[in-house]
C-alpha cells in the first residue's frame, strides 16, 4: 500500500502555439486514489494539457505543483522521474523486440555488465500480474495483438512506479473483454493509491469507472467536479456551449427528394471501419461529423481506394443506371480534397499555376498531344484564380507562401477545372480565416446549385450546422446516427459520443 500523500495541481497554465491559444489559464487538480475523466472536443486543449504533464511540451506560464512544491517537467524521462506516466493512444512499440525489452528498454537490470535476463523476467512478470495479464515476457511484441500491445504500454508505464498515470483513449483498440480487464486494472491502481486521468470520447465508459470529471472547450476548463454532478446531458451541454460565430453561411434551400448518385453498402475495413452504409443524392451536401478517431477520413480514403477495404460495394448511379464501381475508378470521378492539405494536397514548392492545373493537364495539350500549351494553361488558371478570388501576386508564386484560406481555394480550384460530379471534401475549412471560410462555403454552395454532390467532413460543428442537407455521425469507425438538415448541435454531439452496438443505432 502506498502511504505517501500525492497531490498534483496545475495553476494558470497558458500555452500558445503559433496562431492558436491552446490553453488559456487552465487549472487542474488531482490527488492520489482518484480517477478523473477528461472530456473535450478536438482542439479543446486536453491533449496539450496532458502533454505538458508528460514532458512533451512546456507551459508558457503557470505552475505545476506536486504536494505544494513547484516542479518543472523537462522531458518524458523527467516526467517519469517525477512519478508521472503517460500511456498514449498511439502505440510506441518496438515490434521486433520482446515484451520485456519493450518494458525495460531503459531500465534493464544488469549483472557484471550483461543484462540479467532472469531478474528482468521477474520484474516483468510482477508488473504483468499486477495488471492481470498472463503474457510471457519472452514473447515478441509483433506476435501479440494490438489489445495486448496496449496492455504492455500500460505495463511499461508502471515500471517506474508512477504516482499519476495519464490514459489517452486507452480502449480504442480493445475488445470488450480487454476493456473490462482494463477497467479492473485501473480500479486496482486506484486502490493502490495511484491517481489516474482518463481521456475518452466514449461517455458511457466513464460512468462506473471515474470519480471526477473535467470538461474542456477552446483551451478553457468549462466545468469540473464529482461524477455524480455530471449526468450525460450536462456534459454534452458543457461541451457544445454557445458560440459567437456570426458569419455563418447557411444553405438557401434543402434537398428533400431522393435523387441518388452514389450508394455504399456494407463497407468494412477490419479494425477501422465497420458496416458502413450510406447514400449520396444529387445536389446534396452530406455532412459527416464525428470526433477525432471516429474514422471519417478513413471512410473517404477507403471510398476512393487510397486505403484497402475488406468488404463492401460501391455503386454509382448515372442517368438511372446503377453500376458497381471499384474505389480506384471512383477516384477518377471525384474531386478529392484531403484533410492534410499541406502534405497531401499541395505541391508545396511548386507554383500556384502548376498546383491548379495538375489534375487536368490533358485538357491543355497543344497540337502535339504531348506538350502543354502554356498560353491555354495560363488563361485557364487565370480564370480560376479570378473565379475563386484567390489572392496571389502572380501565377508563379510558390503555393506554400499563400495563406491557409487561399491554399484551400487552390485545391478546390484544381478540381473545378476538371469538373467532376462528386466532391469529397475532408476538412475544407479547417485552419483558415473567417472570410475565407465563408468564401469556400459559398463556392461549395454554388457547386450544389449546378447539381454537384458534396460529401463534407468537418470537425467544426458550427460550420456544418445549417449548411448540410443531411448529417451522418461517426464514432469508432461506425455510423452511429443520421439526421436531417434540422439537426441540432446537441443531437450531433450526443451521437458522436455514443457507441454503436452491433446492428442497433443509438
Amino acid at each position, binding site marked *: 500500500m502506498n502511504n505517501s500523500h500525492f497531490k498534483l495541481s496545475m495553476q494558470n497554465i497558458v500555452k500558445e502555439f*503559433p496562431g492558436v491559444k491552446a490553453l488559456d489559464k487552465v487549472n487542474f487538480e488531482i490527488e492520489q486514489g482518484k480517477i478523473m475523466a477528461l472530456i473535450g472536443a478536438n482542439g479543446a486543449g486536453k491533449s496539450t494539457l496532458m502533454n505538458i504533464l508528460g514532458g512533451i511540451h512546456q507551459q508558457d506560464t503557470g505552475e505545476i505543483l506536486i504536494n505544494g512544491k513547484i516542479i518543472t517537467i523537462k522531458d518524458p524521462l523527467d516526467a517519469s522521474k517525477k512519478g508521472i506516466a503517460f500511456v498514449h493512444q498511439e502505440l510506441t512499440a518496438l515490434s521486433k523486440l520482446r515484451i520485456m525489452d519493450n518494458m525495460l528498454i531503459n531500465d534493464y537490470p544488469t549483472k557484471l555488465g550483461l543484462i540479467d535476463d532472469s531478474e528482468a523476467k521477474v520484474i516483468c512478470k510482477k508488473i504483468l500480474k499486477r495488471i492481470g495479464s498472463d503474457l510471457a515476457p519472452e514473447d515478441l511484441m509483433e506476435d501479440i495483438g494490438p489489445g495486448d500491445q496496449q496492455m504492455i504500454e500500460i505495463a511499461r508505464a508502471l515500471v517506474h512506479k508512477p504516482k499519476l498515470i495519464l490514459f489517452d483513449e486507452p480502449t480504442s483498440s480493445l475488445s470488450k473483454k480487454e476493456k473490462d480487464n482494463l477497467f479492473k486494472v485501473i480500479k486496482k491502481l486506484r486502490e493502490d493509491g495511484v491517481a489516474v486521468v482518463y481521456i475518452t470520447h466514449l461517455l458511457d465508459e466513464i460512468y462506473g469507472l471515474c470519480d471526477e470529471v473535467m470538461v474542456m472547450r477552446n483551451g478553457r476548463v468549462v466545468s469540473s467536479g464529482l461524477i455524480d454532478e455530471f449526468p450525460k446531458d450536462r456534459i454534452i451541454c458543457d461541451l457544445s456551449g454557445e458560440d459567437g460565430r456570426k458569419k455563418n453561411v447557411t444553405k438557401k434551400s434543402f434537398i428533400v427528394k431522393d435523387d441518388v448518385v452514389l450508394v455504399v453498402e456494407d463497407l468494412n475495413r477490419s479494425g477501422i471501419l465497420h458496416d458502413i452504409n450510406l447514400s449520396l443524392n444529387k445536389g446534396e451536401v452530406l455532412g459527416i461529423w464525428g470526433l477525432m478517431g471516429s474514422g471519417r477520413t478513413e471512410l473517404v480514403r477507403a471510398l476512393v481506394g*487510397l486505403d484497402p477495404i475488406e468488404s463492401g460495394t460501391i455503386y454509382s448511379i448515372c442517368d438511372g443506371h446503377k453500376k458497381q464501381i471499384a474505389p480506384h475508378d471512383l*477516384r*477518377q470521378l471525384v474531386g*478529392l480534397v*484531403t484533410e492534410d492539405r499541406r*502534405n*497531401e*494536397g*499541395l*505541391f*508545396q*514548392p*511548386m507554383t500556384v499555376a*502548376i498546383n491548379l492545373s*495538375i*489534375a487536368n*493537364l*490533358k485538357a*491543355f*495539350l497543344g497540337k502535339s498531344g*504531348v*506538350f*502543354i500549351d*502554356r498560353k491555354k494553361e495560363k488563361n485557364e488558371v487565370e480564370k480560376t484564380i479570378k473565379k475563386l478570388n484567390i489572392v496571389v501576386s502572380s501565377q508563379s508564386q510558390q503555393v*506554400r*507562401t*499563400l*495563406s491557409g484560406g487561399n491554399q484551400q481555394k487552390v485545391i478546390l480550384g*484544381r478540381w473545378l477545372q*476538371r469538373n467532376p460530379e462528386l466532391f469529397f471534401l475532408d476538412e475544407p475549412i479547417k485552419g483558415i480565416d473567417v472570410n475565407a471560410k465563408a468564401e469556400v462555403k459559398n463556392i461549395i454552395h454554388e457547386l450544389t446549385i449546378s447539381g454537384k454532390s458534396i460529401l463534407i467532413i468537418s470537425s467544426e460543428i458550427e460550420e456544418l450546422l445549417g449548411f448540410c442537407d443531411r448529417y451522418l455521425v461517426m464514432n469508432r469507425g461506425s455510423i452511429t446516427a443520421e439526421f436531417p438538415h434540422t439537426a441540432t448541435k446537441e443531437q450531433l454531439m450526443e451521437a458522436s459520443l455514443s457507441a454503436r452496438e452491433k446492428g442497433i443505432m443509438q
Partner: protein
Amino acid sequence: MTKLSDRKDLHIGSKFIIKEELVKHGIAALPIIIVLLASLIIGLRVPNFLTARNVINILEQSSAIGLMAIGLSFVFIVGGMDISIAANMGLSGIVGAVLMRIGLPPALACVVMILAGTLIGMINGFAVAYLGMIPFVVTLSMMYVAAGASVYLTEATSISGLPEIFVNTIMMRIWKIPLPVIVVVIFSITATKFMRSSYLGRWVYAVGTNIKAAEIAGIPVRGVKFWAYALAGSFAGLTAILNTARLASASATMGTSVIVLDVASSAVVGGVSMYGGVGTPLGAVIGALLITLISNSMNMIGVSYYLTLVVKGFVIIAFIGFDYWIRRGNE
C-alpha cells in the same frame, strides 16, 4: 536581441524571405560559380588548360557520365534512385560487343544495347513501382547481378576487335566536335524540354515532389515511376554504345561503383536533388562537366590521381549534405 528570422516584417506567409531568396538563387549558381572560378585560376596557371583542344577533351571525357546523368536525372526527379545504372551500362555494352564479335551488324548491335539497358531498367522499375520495393535494395541487387553477369560473359577479360566502322562512326567528329558530345547536347536539351513542357514531365516532377498529393490528384503514380526507371536504363544502353566505341572494347570494369558515384554526384551538383522534384537533365549534364573538370584540372596541376579520389569522395558528400540542408530548410 531579436534574431533576423524573428522579424515578422521580413516574412511572407511564414517563411523567412531573405534566406529563401539567397538560397534559391545562390544554390543554383554555386556550382557554376565554382567552375568558373576554378577554370580561371587554373587557366591562369596552366598554359594548356584553356585551349580549344583541352576544352573539347574535357567535353568528350564528360559525355559518358553526362549521358548516364541524364538517365539518372529521371529517376532522381521522380524521387527514386538507381545504383545499378553503371553496371547496366557495362553489361549492355558487353552484350553488344559480344554480338558484334559474332558478326551482328553494328547498327543492330546498337539497337540491342539500348534494348538491353531498357530491359534492365524495366525490371528495376517494375520492382519499385509495382512490387513496392525499396529502390536502394532493388537497384543494389541488380547491380550485383549485372556486374556478375558482366564478368561471366567476358571471362574477366575485355572484348576487343570490334568492327572499325562501328568505332569510327560513333567517334567521328563533326566540325572538330566529337559526335558523342553532340549527342549529349542534343539529348540534354530535348530531355529538358520534355521534362519541363510535356504533361508527362510535369507528372514526374509532381510524383517526386509529393507522391501522396500526386496520387490524390489522379496521376498514375506507378506508371510514372516505372517509365522513369525504364528510361534511365535506355540511357544506360545509349552510354554503352558510346563507351564501347570510345574504348573500342567492352569489359567488366566499364561499370564500376566509382562511376555510379560520378554520375550521382553529377546529377546532384547539377541541381537534381536526390530527394526528388527538382532539377533538369541539362543541369545534370552541366554537373557532369563540373565533375570531369575537377578531375581534369587536378590532373593538370599535377595532383596525384589518388588525391583526386579523396577530394572527389569528400566533395560529393559535401554537395549532397548541402543538398539535404537546402531541402530541409525549404520544407
